[in-house]
């Protein structure tokens, strides 16, 4: 089945099995392996991407359901050799260790600030509830998101 969508600003097209999950389309067909898979129950958020500007766990939908959509993955966040401000904040606050949850976490956090530009600490914690991290204890992730929102330094 043919699917066409815009991924990180580029028009992409491929012939996939109808049952192909969007995350596997991105990873296995387009080679965009920055989006990770951490579970099989849509619990961990490692596969979070943006579809038409909103964060979505890309294991929760089929590639064909994203036909015509504007998709952004972690590979589309840095531009002109500069990290996205959220990526920069994660680096400055040591908000990552093994890095596996990080792409999904960065995508979820960016979306969170789009919806709520100056969240409280509690709102950040609630807002990232769908993204699991086993390394950081979340302390520095929360700090990074607050920092990226202009609240508190690194």
């Amino acid at each position, binding site marked *: 089945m043919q699917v066409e969508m815009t991924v990180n600003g580029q028009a992409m097209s491929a012939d996939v099995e109808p049952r192909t999950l969007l995350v596997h389309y991105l990873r296995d067909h387009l080679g965009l392996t920055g989006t990770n898979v951490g579970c099989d129950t849509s619990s961990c958020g490692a596969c979070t991407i943006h579809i038409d500007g909103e964060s979505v766990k890309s294991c929760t939908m089929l590639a064909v359901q994203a036909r015509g959509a504007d998709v952004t993955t972690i*590979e589309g966040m840095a531009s002109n050799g500069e990290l996205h401000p959220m990526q920069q904040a994660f680096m400055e606050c040591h908000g990552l260790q093994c890095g596996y949850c990080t792409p999904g976490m960065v995508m979820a956090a960016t979306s969170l600030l789009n919806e709520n530009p100056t969240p409280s600490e509690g709102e950040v914690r609630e807002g990232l509830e769908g993204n699991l991290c086993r390394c950081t204890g979340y302390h520095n992730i929360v700090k990074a998101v607050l920092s990226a929102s202009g609240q508190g330094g690194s």
Partner: protein
Amino acid sequence: MTATEQAPGGANIGSRKLRKEDPKLLTGEGKYVDDIHAPGELWMGMVRSTMAHARITGIDTSEAAAAEGVHAVYTGADLADMGLWIAPLPCAWPVTPDMVNPPHYPVANGEVHHVGEIIAVVLADSRYGAADAAEQVVVDYEPLPVVSSIADARDGDATAHADLESNKAYHWPLVPDPDALEAAFANAAHVVKAEFEQQRLIPAAMEPRGVLAVPSPHGGDITLYSATQVPHILKVMVAATTGIPEMKIRVVAPAVGGGFGAKLNINPDEILAVTLANKLGRPVRWTETRSEAAFSTHQGRGQLQTIEVAADAAGKIAGVRVHVDADMGAYMMLITPGVPLLGSFLYTGVYHVPAFGFTCDGYFTNLTPTDAYRGAGRPEASYAIERAMDLLAAKVGVGPDEIRRRNYLNGGEAFENLETASTLVFDSGNYAPNLDAALEMAGYADLRAEQQRRRDAGDSKQLGIGLCTYVEICGLAPSRALGGLNYGAGGWEHATVRFLPTGKVEVVSGSTPHGQGHETAWSQIVGDKLGIDPDDVTVLHSDTAISPLGLDTYGSRSLAVGGVAIAMACDKVVEKAKLIAAHQLEANPDDLEFEGGAFTVKGSPDKTMPIQGVAFGAFTAHNLPDGMEPNLQEQVTFDPPNFAFPFGTHVCVVEVDEDTGNVDLLDYTAIDDCGNQVNPLIVEGQVHGGIVQGVAQALWEGASYDHDGNCRNPSFLDYLVPSAAEVPNMKLGSTVTPSTSNPLGVKGVGEAGTIGSAAAVINAVCDALSPHGIDDIAMPATPARVWKAIQNAKGGQS
């Protein structure tokens, strides 16, 4: 070294340098195993047992084998006939000469011993095709009696393996002076006795395990990419298990998404990928699904502990006696039987214990094998002694801080190289100031006042304050000590430091990071040692073709062994460079000073040469001292003379809702002492993550099994790995008591948070409930358990 001395070296060691690793990981450039592909690769799909203990009476692979895109289907019998391996999966730690160790092959043949054990393997062209084909294999079973718990294994009639007479695998004692121990208990004014269950935990590193084996059909080489913490050990064990000559095997651990001990094993999938890739002449890959991980990756903990503490009237400890029944699971994996032993030495905690005894019985069950999980034996030990200290405090009638002060080693004052009753020599410690710092940061006096206020008011939300002062064993390990414990390898680590012609530096390390920031921290050490910019250093690791010597990453050993090896190799580089510089400056080497990355003749500041210039001279080799080899490269294999013993105090504040049993974490303070710190930013990150893993054991996590040996909560839907919403901000601080076990004075911090936190949390919960006479709550302290305990204490009146 004194307790307050700062880290050695220049501007880099001790600085909060941002991590070199991050830009790749933040942008998706980091390549994990599942991101790497090889042309012509086949996907493995595993047919796993749905029964915990059964005889396999039939396997029908016909439908799967006929499916489109399926290349082959192999049962355990097929694979045994193919002669792909020469030995079972290895156990490197036969803790006693008579330890029972049933053979564990990658695929079951005849009898299965836990749910999820592999029964057959399919090879297909695609990820989905392999999963489909595995579903199409039909297995017939004849059920056998199931051993689904330690108590079943110890007390029941069924055996986990049909051909075993008993489930007991070994008995291991550490009782240095039995008579003294008896006397301590006979003469005690107080004895507390408690039983604790260390529930099984699913490690749940965010990256599932995965493998890709790429063969060279004509050359005979094989490259195994694996999400592993132990590429070097894996290489040796692949050779020993398959008979493939070791020099033909290359193991690569690419970016690895967390380990926590779960990736230090030698797994069926790794051996299958290598042998089937060789057999078929095509790359073979497999990636674990999360729900599969409860069966395909070992679990942690799984112990029943009995601890007794004898003390005098004032609460001074006279003796500690411990027995552990440990759940091995269905098989012995790499270090399964040794995990309780790693904890055995720490049941005396940070205390002066005149008499000590520890015994452990290992038992087989029909459950997923256990093995190392963050802390590996040491969180269990710390939990038992720290819970027991609170029970002792209540019995003696003093506060939890006071009972600890009365018992600290060396009276709570600083010490070095102190022998304990558990036969270890603690490198250094200084416990009372650490406790003071934690109590002050936590606001302990105010917390106690608020607790009293709520108690007086009969508030439905009661405050609990829990302390834990832990010590752990890091820097695994002095090779002779490991030999004494019958462990199958040494504990050294290797490093090579080389200048490149352009003045940049390559470091090759045998330790293998999976999130710890080694590239950054090692660069800081090299920066100070060689007087260069840490950004002029690159660190090569995790590929046995690039880093052929190493013993990998576990047991908080990387810095205290591997980092020290790098520092020592730098010293050797400077030594050689000094001879070259002296030669070229026409000076006596003894007259040269090395500072800020340059050699200068004392008293002649114009006679100077930067080390990069020396390195270029060593490369061209035009003008070296007679007989000196070209190039500036040195290597060191460091075998530590002793372990390192970090310690710390955690203070946990919980709010227990007496109406619902819910436990909320209000505040968490940790003052850790890991000796000198190379990068405090990284240290704090390790402590944060470690604390949350221990908190999670205390409050939320636990692999739950039914009587048939089925795991009830294998997926993230049911297994409660905490999210940001459940955990509080943490207040961290540190004291610095340098280690005497290595020249950097460093200790290790990867497991510290986990070792201190579970006891602190449960001590806090019990503290909140103490007015009801409740002195223990089993982990995880779920709302249901807490609520029931309150109702029982009230005599069933709600």
